[in-house]
Each structure stands twice: as structure tokens, then as C-alpha cells.
């Protein structure tokens, strides 16, 4: 029994030393693997550059995003007048508009994804952890929502509430959280059966504490991966809605709006399509590469 009692001074020193020995957490491992993945690393850098450009766009160019110049309608890229990407049909500078569109598109992507993340994780974790009839009921609701055709759903919303910026988030968020909820529920159910959860229950740890200390941290991995793959989907969905004229309204712009305009003038002014489309394609590629990289990094066994 003596070894269990108050230890001598030697152990105190050991514990202090221990504080300095840091373990390699699974996150540290994942970070190292992610940074070793060339595609993911370059995607991160490219995405970072696009984000910085989007933030500081107005400072780089002398023109405003809604500044109409009737003497400069539809001119091709012209470096002497600082129209690096040319101008559109109203003489607005396309460089500024493309980066402004990047702001809106990225913002919609991130915000709508966060909304779907919060709803999806809360909903899925609750259904999965409680289980039984509650789970059945909650997941049937998800199935029903899944079955609704997305465009039909959006058109109904537009008809009822009129065109509205907030509506965009609602419409996209309402669809994207469903998959998140399913993923989180599945993960929660498999986690719940794991022995370390049983060990915690056997020690008398309460339900809420188990969810907070064991379930959520272990959900984080798959959720982070899914988030990075959801952002490009949301960006795509936004541009699709904007393309149909249901999304962002003028003079505000997004990549979807710009591509829509560019597509109309594709034959006479190809630059109007090329630049926004290139930016969007590169961004989507980057997110997908990062998502794949994260998945490999967080769970190297599932490759």
C-alpha cells in the first residue's frame, strides 16, 4: 500500500520533467502527413493566395467593383490602363469584380458550411447517441428532406419570400446539413460501441461528459474532412443558383453571376468567362485536394 501514499520528492521532479515531454497526438501526426502531401500543401498555398487577393482586391486596383465606365465597355485585358482582366458590358473592371465575387463566393461557402456543420453535428450526434425510436424518427425526417428536389425547393422559397440574400444561406444550408447529420450519426453509433466509452461509463462518467470528452473529439476528424469537401459543393450550389438568377443580385457579384454573364458574351468577349471560371475551378480543385489530403492524413488506414 505504501507506494500509493504521498510520494517522495523524487517523483515531484519527475512530474515536472514529464510536463516538458510532449506526446505526439493524432493531430500532430495528421498535420505532419498533410504537410508531406504535395498536392494538399500546394492547394493550401494557392487557396491562401486567392483568399488574400480577395481580401485586399480593392487596394490593388484603382477601380471600384460597381464603378461603371461607359467609355470602357467590353475591352479585353489591357495592362496600360490597369484593366488586367478587361472590363464587362457596363465598363466595370473585371479584375476587381472577379476578386469581389471571390469574397462573396468564399463567404457563402464558409458560412453556409458552418451553418450545416452546427445543425448537422448537433442533430446527428443526438440521434446517434440516444438511439432507438428517437433515432429512427430523426433520421426519417432527414430522409424526407433528402427526397425533396433541390431546385424545386429553392424556387418555392423564392416564390414565397422573394429574392433575398439570406434565403440563399437558408436554401443551401437546409440541404447540406442532411449529409453531415448522417455522417455524424454513423460515426457516433460506432463510437458509442467502442470500449473506451464503456470504460468511461463503468467509471461513472455522466452522459453529457462522455459526449463532450470522448464523442466530440473523436468525431472531429471525419467532420473536418467533410467540411472541406462541403465548401466547394456550397460554392457550386451558390453559383448554380446565381446562374439561374436566383442568387446574388447586382451590383453585388459572385463567381456564379460573373460566369453567367460571361457565358452570354462568350463569343464576343471570352475573357469575361475565362477569368471567373478559372478562379472558381482552381478554388474547387484546391478544396478537393485539401479534403482528400486531410482524409488520408487523419485516417491513413482507409486509403
Amino acid at each position, binding site marked *: *500500500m505504501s*507506494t*500509493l501514499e*504521498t*510520494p517522495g520528492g523524487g*517523483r515531484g521532479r*519527475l*512530474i515536472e*520533467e*514529464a*510536463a516538458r*515531454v*510532449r*506526446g*505526439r*497526438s*493524432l493531430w500532430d501526426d495528421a498535420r505532419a502527413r498533410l504537410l508531406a502531401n504535395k498536392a494538399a500543401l500546394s492547394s493550401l498555398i494557392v487557396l491562401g493566395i486567392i483568399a488574400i487577393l480577395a481580401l485586399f482586391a480593392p487596394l490593388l486596383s484603382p477601380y471600384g467593383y460597381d464603378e461603371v465606365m461607359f467609355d470602357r465597355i467590353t475591352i479585353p485585358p489591357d495592362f496600360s490602363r490597369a484593366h488586367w482582366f478587361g472590363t464587362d458590358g457596363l465598363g466595370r473592371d473585371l479584375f476587381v469584380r472577379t476578386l469581389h465575387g471571390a469574397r462573396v463566393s468564399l463567404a457563402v461557402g464558409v458560412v453556409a458550411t458552418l451553418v450545416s456543420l452546427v445543425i448537422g453535428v448537433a442533430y446527428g450526434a443526438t440521434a446517434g447517441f440516444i438511439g432507438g425510436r428517437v433515432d429512427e424518427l430523426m433520421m426519417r425526417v432527414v430522409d424526407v428532406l433528402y427526397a425533396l428536389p433541390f431546385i424545386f425547393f429553392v424556387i418555392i422559397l423564392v416564390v414565397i419570400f422573394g429574392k433575398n440574400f439570406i434565403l440563399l444561406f437558408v436554401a443551401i444550408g437546409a440541404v447540406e446539413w442532411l449529409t453531415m447529420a448522417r455522417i455524424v450519426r454513423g460515426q457516433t453509433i460506432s463510437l458509442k460501441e*467502442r*470500449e*473506451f466509452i*464503456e*470504460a*468511461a*461509463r*463503468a*467509471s*461513472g*462518467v455522466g452522459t453529457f461528459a462522455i459526449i463532450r*470528452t*470522448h464523442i466530440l*473529439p*473523436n468525431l*472531429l476528424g471525419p467532420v473536418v474532412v467533410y467540411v472541406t469537401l462541403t465548401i466547394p459543393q456550397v460554392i457550386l450550389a451558390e453559383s448554380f443558383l446565381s446562374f439561374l438568377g436566383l442568387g446574388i443580385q447586382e451590383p453585388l457579384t459572385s463567381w456564379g453571376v460573373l460566369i453567367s454573364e460571361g457565358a452570354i458574351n462568350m463569343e464576343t468577349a471570352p475573357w469575361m468567362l475565362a477569368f471567373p471560371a478559372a478562379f472558381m475551378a482552381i478554388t474547387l480543385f484546391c478544396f478537393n485536394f485539401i479534403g482528400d489530403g486531410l482524409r488520408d492524413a487523419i485516417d491513413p488506414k482507409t486509403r
Partner: protein
Amino acid sequence: MRETLLEVSDLRVHFPVRGQGLFARPRPLRAVDGVSFTVHAGETLGIVGESGSGKSTIARAILRLNTPTGGRVVWLGTDIARLSEHALRPLRRDLQIIFQDPLASLDPRMTVGDIVAEPLTVAEPELTREARRERVAAMLDLVGLSPQMVNRYPHEFSGGQCQRIGIARAMVVRPRLVLCDEAVSSLDVSIQAQIINLLKRLQREMGLSLIFISHDLSVVRHISDRILVLYLGRVMELGPAERVIGLAHHPYTAALISAVPVPDPAVERGRPRLLLEGEIPSPLDPPSGCVFRTRCPKAQARCAAEVPALVPRGTDEAHLAACHFPNI
């Protein structure tokens, strides 16, 4: 007689299994069906059985990780089989468990220090951070791990070391009874011996009782004072370890003993083998009477008609067997 800590009587755990067909009623899977035994202070009770014998279900029922269908689990005079989770919480520190899979029983996202500290935060919330760290460090030291490991993560350890962490987590609250559910079964031979010796040492130093559950009769014999032989959710034989192995009353125990290989060719090749026919029947549809009768070399008509009672059959009152035609 030493103090009785745990008294399990007529424990039943049935799981509903959905029947085949649309309107079929759920049928009960009788995982544990009328098991009784006691555990005294400081002793080791070995529970041995093959897959489907219900040995792990017993452990989980005692800890209320699943709810008993019937029977009593009396811990120091209190029946805990019916207690609410809230009323049970203060008793939980006395009863701890060590699992089979060392890595799976540790949360991969937590540091070793946090894992071992977790039961302590529940059992003794009044401890200061400093005191808790001291206790965790002392416990790690006791199970043979350097206290410097506290900030490391489970995946940085080998299987044997992970099992030491699992033992530290179970022992840190100074429980009175620890259930070892196949605690050494997934370990390599050389590491298994380390862990067995560690468990024996901790038991001695802390005055613990152990319920040691395993399919490996050699290990159970080595560590246990008494052995309980389980088959299809029922007790076949229960008695002092040396008597159960040396003078097995029940034909199932005898067959089990003869099936266990001995690591010595000179002995192993000369041993008589009692080969049992067939395999364990489904617990959804157990045989009538004695559940072992379908594989028993001594089965007679009476075995199908009448469930044998678990009673002393030989000279020793503590040595019980549930058989109509025991080997005496």
C-alpha cells in the same frame, strides 16, 4: 470465511432478437441464464467458458453496462441490479473493469495522464489538480510505466503498455473488485506473463478481489483461487481451482481440460483426448434439461428432462457441479 463482497444470485440476461419474417415476435437470446456465485474479499474468481458462454455478459451485467433481466447482484448488502444510474454512481468506484483490447479501450485523442485521471475526477472531484497529478503519476509508477509518459498518447505505446495504462485507470480509484474481461487474451505470450504477474502483485499490495474472465483455462488456473466453468449461460461447475482441474466432476470441465494443449511434446502426445462432438448450440434455442447434453458423452434420458441443480457432489462442500451423472 472472509467477508463476502459480491453475491450474484440467479442472474439472467436475455437480449431480444428480432425474429425472421415480418410479424415474428422477438425471441429472447439467453446469454446468461440463472448464474449464481459469490466473491470474497481478496480472492480471485476465475470464470472460464468458450465463446457464447455468456462470460463477458456477466461482467457487463455486474457493472450495469447492460441491464440484468432477472436475479440479484448484491454488492456489500445492496442489490445493484435495480439501482438507478444516479444511485449507482457512488458505488462505481469500488467496481472497475479491464478490457480485452488494450488499444480500443483507451480514447485515442486523450493523453495517458487524462485517461488515468478520468475515473479520479468522477470518484474524488474534491482533489486539486496537483493532487490528481500526483495520484496519476504514482499509479503509473505502480504499473511499471514511467510517470514521464503522462503527456503521451495511446498509439505511441505497445499493446502490453496500453494494457498497463488500462490497469492504471482501473486501479487509480482504489477499487475493491476488478473485473478482468479477457484482459490478457490479446497479448503476446511474453507480455501476457508480465501482465499476469502485475495483476497478481497489485492484488496483493492493494488487497483487491478479482474476477478473471478468460477462455484460456491454463491462465485461469494459474491466477484463480476458485474457478467457475460456464457453458451456454449456465454454471457447469464451481469450486477451488485445484479441485476443479484435478478432480473435475462435470463431463464438460473434463473435456475442456483434455482439449487444452500443454506446451510440452513429451506430455502432450501421451495425453488421453476426450474429443467433444459438434459445437456450442445457439443460445436462442438452448437444449432442454442440461444444456450440455447434446455434446455430452454420458448423456441419458434424464438429462433432457430435468435441469441438473448446482450442488456439491463430492466430499468438498465448496465444490459444486450441475450434472446428473458426475465423475466422482
